């Protein structure tokens, strides 16, 4: 491939990196400005989006001597991340002002996070993967502690940092085991190694599992989920939304890549692969059960969504499990990730826009009687919550539906049943806030809140996405299915 072509493939990253520098410079030039940083960041994301759509690669393209690879999926994922970034960029300005968060700091860290996530999704070398992981994680730690005067936010940042750092070390340990076993950190070389031999397989097994654990932690699968409720609750809400979508998405793309690290089609590796499946099965079921059971008992919206996202990780792992048997079933994971990101984004924007209290996030009771105060916002809440509960005509139904279907297709029927039961239990939790909003009278003392036009617009766009996609799922599915086959 000539250098011009590879340049066009990396152009979204170049645009992002340029935008990061520009946004950073603004804070150097004028500390007090707000708008320019926001405008710059959103402009950068728009350009990134355009670059992604313009330079959609044909098939998988290897870059930097196999250290990275770009595929339609990763480019499309970056495009979606840009869209999410734009929505968060528009939607959270009033929240940032309220929380006295520095605009240019927030926006350039947001951009770095997206850049890190995108590189992580493209990494084909364990070293690059680690660097990208840290590029993604460090802004997340910092952002979690952005409400500097709030002890809970500080605590969340420290907790996230300590646990995240430790699991980063676990990743490195795993990478060195894998290197010891195979003699390479290139995933392509490791794949070749697996085709030739099963020597050192025990050493490789330990390393492989450690790598997986590091990313199971990132997506907060049980039993590596403990950090999530605390961090979700403490972090500024706009940041929580970013973490919930961007980090989860990158985490699952990498998990899929790590699971495909060896040639599972070879007969020698079949027992090995079967025992890996056991691990994923266990973690998936634990995540589903714990997430769905605890989500019912939560009173704080952000904690509720934390447990909800744990159960979502369970569904996604079931999708991965199905793809381990039949690789083409990976489409259910991509559909789930895209749909989940959209509804989570909208939901967190809504929370950040309706926080009445200065010191804490939104409690469920704060929603009481919202319908009387603001029927339109109640409608938006209802759309997202019903989508979370998996109601037909929203995207939430299809995401779950395809996971169930592919589990069945892969012969994991019993887990589809477990997941369906968990979906029913979880649905109750999402119904409660709707009942509170619609069927109770408002507390007359409740603070009313104002939202900016752009903020409202961002939520409306995600809601339209959730419903439109729910009614006509075919459009996106066609794209993603095409990609899943190429991937």
């Amino acid at each position: 491939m000539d250098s011009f072509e590879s340049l066009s493939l990396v152009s979204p990253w170049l645009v992002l990196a340029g935008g990061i520098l520009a946004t950073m410079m603004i804070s150097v030039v004028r500390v007090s400005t707000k708008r320019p940083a926001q405008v710059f960041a959103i402009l950068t994301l728009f350009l990134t989006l355009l670059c992604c759509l313009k330079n959609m690669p044909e098939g998988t393209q290897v870059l930097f001597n196999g250290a990275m690879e770009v595929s339609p999926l990763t480019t499309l994922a970056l495009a979606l991340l840009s869209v999410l970034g734009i929505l968060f960029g528009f939607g959270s300005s009033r929240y940032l002002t309220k929380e006295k968060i520095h605009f240019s700091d927030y926006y350039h860290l947001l951009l770095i996070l997206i850049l890190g996530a995108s590189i992580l999704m493209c990494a084909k070398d364990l070293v690059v993967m680690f660097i990208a992981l840290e590029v993604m994680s460090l802004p997340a730690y910092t952002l979690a502690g952005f409400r500097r005067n709030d002890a809970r936010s500080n605590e969340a940042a420290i907790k996230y940092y300590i646990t995240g750092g430790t699991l980063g070390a676990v990743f490195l340990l795993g990478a060195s085991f894998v290197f010891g076993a195979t003699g390479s950190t290139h995933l392509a070389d490791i794949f070749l190694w697996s085709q030739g031999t099963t020597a050192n397989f025990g050493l490789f097994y330990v390393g492989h599992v450690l790598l997986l654990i590091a990313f199971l932690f990132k997506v907060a699968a049980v039993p590596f989920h403990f950090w999530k409720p605390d961090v979700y609750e403490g972090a500024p809400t706009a940041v929580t939304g970013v973490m919930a979508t961007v980090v989860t998405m990158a985490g699952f793309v990498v998990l899929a890549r790590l699971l495909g690290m060896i040639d599972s089609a070879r007969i020698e590796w079949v027992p090995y692969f079967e025992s890996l499946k056991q691990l994923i099965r266990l973690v998936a079921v634990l995540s589903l059960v714990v997430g769905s059971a605890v989500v019912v008992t939560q009173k704080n919206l952000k904690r509720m969504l934390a447990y909800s996202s744990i159960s979502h990780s369970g569904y996604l792992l079931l999708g991965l499990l199905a793809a381990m048997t039949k690789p083409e079933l990976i489409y259910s994971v991509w559909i789930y990730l895209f749909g989940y990101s959209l509804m989570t984004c909208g939901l967190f924007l809504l929370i950040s826009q309706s926080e009445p209290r200065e010191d804490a996030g939104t409690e469920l009771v704060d929603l009481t009687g919202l319908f009387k105060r603001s029927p339109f916002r109640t409608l938006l809440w209802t759309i997202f919550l019903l989508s979370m509960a998996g109601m037909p005509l929203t995207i939430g139904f299809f995401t779950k539906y395809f996971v169930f279907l592919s589990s069945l297709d892969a012969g994991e029927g019993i887990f589809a049943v477990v997941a369906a039961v968990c979906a029913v239990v979880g649905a109750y939790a999402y119904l409660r806030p709707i009942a509170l909003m619609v069927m109770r009278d408002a507390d007359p003392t409740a603070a009313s809140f104002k939202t900016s036009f752009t903020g409202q617009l961002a939520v409306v766009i995600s809601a339209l996405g959730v419903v439109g996609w729910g009614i006509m799922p075919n459009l996106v599915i066609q794209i993603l299915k095409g990609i899943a086959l190429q991937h």
Partner: protein
Amino acid sequence: MILSLLILFPAVGFLINGLLHLMAVNSKRKISANVSGFIATAAMVASFGVALYQFLLLRNIPAEGRIFEQTLFNWISLGKLQLDFTLRLDSLSAVFCLVITGVGSLIHLYSIGYMHDDETPAKYFSYLNLFCFMMLNLVLGATLPHVFLGWEGVGLASYLLIGYWYRDLEKVAAGQKAFIMNRIGDLAFLLAMFLAFRATGTLDLLQLQKIGLEPALVLPFGLLIFFACTGKSAQIPLFTWLPDAMAGPTPVSALIHAATMVTSGIYLLTRLSSVISSSETVLMVIAMTGAVTVFLSALMACAQTDIKKVLAYSTISQLGFMFLGCGVGAFDAGVFHVMTHAFFKALLFLGAGSVIHALHGEQDIFKMGGLMKKLPITSWTFIMGWAAILGLPPFSGFFSKDEIIYQSLTSPHGSVSFFILAVAAAFLTAFYMTRLLVLVFFGPSRVDAKVAAKIHESPMLMAAPLIVLSILALVGGWLGAPVHVGAETTTESHAIEYAVMGGSVVMALIGAFIAHKKYGQTSKAEKVNSFLLNGMKWDSFYLCTFGTGTQKIATGINTFFEEMIVQRLIRWSAVAVDLSGNILKIAQSGSAQGYLAMMAIAIFAILAWVIYGVGQYGKL
């Protein structure tokens, strides 16, 4: 094409009224019930026109090809899974469409009068239109996911409408109960759908009927579908939500909890009849559940004092008749009864609504009485409904109910015990309906003096639907069963048929007579005890049986299902969830060290398992 208009009209009505309501809340103004009611009713009438037109077209086509299809768009296409968003009208769905839009139009019209003083009529009418839209999707959907969409949608609309008067916490709870019980049934539906897709590779109902399932799978599939139907159609054990659902406005009870939504279980069973009826066990379970439900809920209806609760238990009982019909293989008789029941039960509910309206919210039948003179239209139409539900010839209920009772005895799947339960239920039906009738409309008035002065007949908007429905309750059965599903059931001997016919009518008359004797002269607001004082000799026999006895048995059964099973199930699952939640909360200590320790343990456990596994392969 025209078929899509059928679902389009209610959808448009829903959107317009929804927008009106949003605007009304924002501008803090009130939308008149006349305006939003007119929009919603016009949408339903237009939809009814389309349904009627399509139905007439359909009749002109020879029986084999009686299907209209319209594909709106490609819904999902994913490898094996090819789903179009297709509406399909055949004679079965045409009957349901006519009932939904026809009875629906009347109930919409009635609602304009009934909800006249309501604060948010636009919200009410938008929910009502939403319900009709979803219900039409349920019966017109060509694929299982499309039916499921309607299935979930009507549940949601029903939930919203039961909790419509949300200021009353009890009503909110009733709505939630209905929703959760329906979710349990929905789970079974989902599982059945997956099973069918896995076995046949198709979700299209027509293809599913053609391919069928392999014998081993019919049993689980049939039982799952049946379980889903018990939730929606309020059969034992998932029936207790329906009496609670009476918390909603009365026209809602008439439309959703009598005429349409609760019959969707029968629709689904009939739609899949060719698949499930190859399993004897499935049919037997359906018939048994129906027979037991029909009898027990009729018994329970005898002990109710709330006018709407009597009708609610009566609905459960009548649904039991339909299930019994399906279970003995007489699916067409079941659908026939869906149609006639929609007429007369909607009539009875609307009549009850008219009474409640006239008495300013009073629902206790022991505080009514003697309303015949003051509410002539309501009374006479109610009497027509009473005659229909009793199965007196030539009213519609006679034809359909008699067919089911007859089939429960003579069908190859029938048995004497089903027959006895059905006849006993027919007898009880006559008893509790006559009790209701005489307590409300005849005898001396027990109405509070303050209320009595203000009693007035309902406005014409409410009276007109009553009159139309009462005519339908009379003539609705004359044409015979509207659909024929599966093999023709041959009439073995007319002698048996006439005997059954005459027998059930006589039983009904005896029940009515006893109830009339017993309740005809009730003058005080006292209930059972006052009758025990009655010294007539031959009274003592039925007083033992139907007086205290019935009360006790009925309350006992109700308590058993409500408290022992449903409440416990809910309580236990709540405790289980709470407990596990609390245990997990302990792990969620809040200290980072604790989390790290926990994760370290997890990592070590996994690694130990990995190394053990490696040792097993002997290759470390």
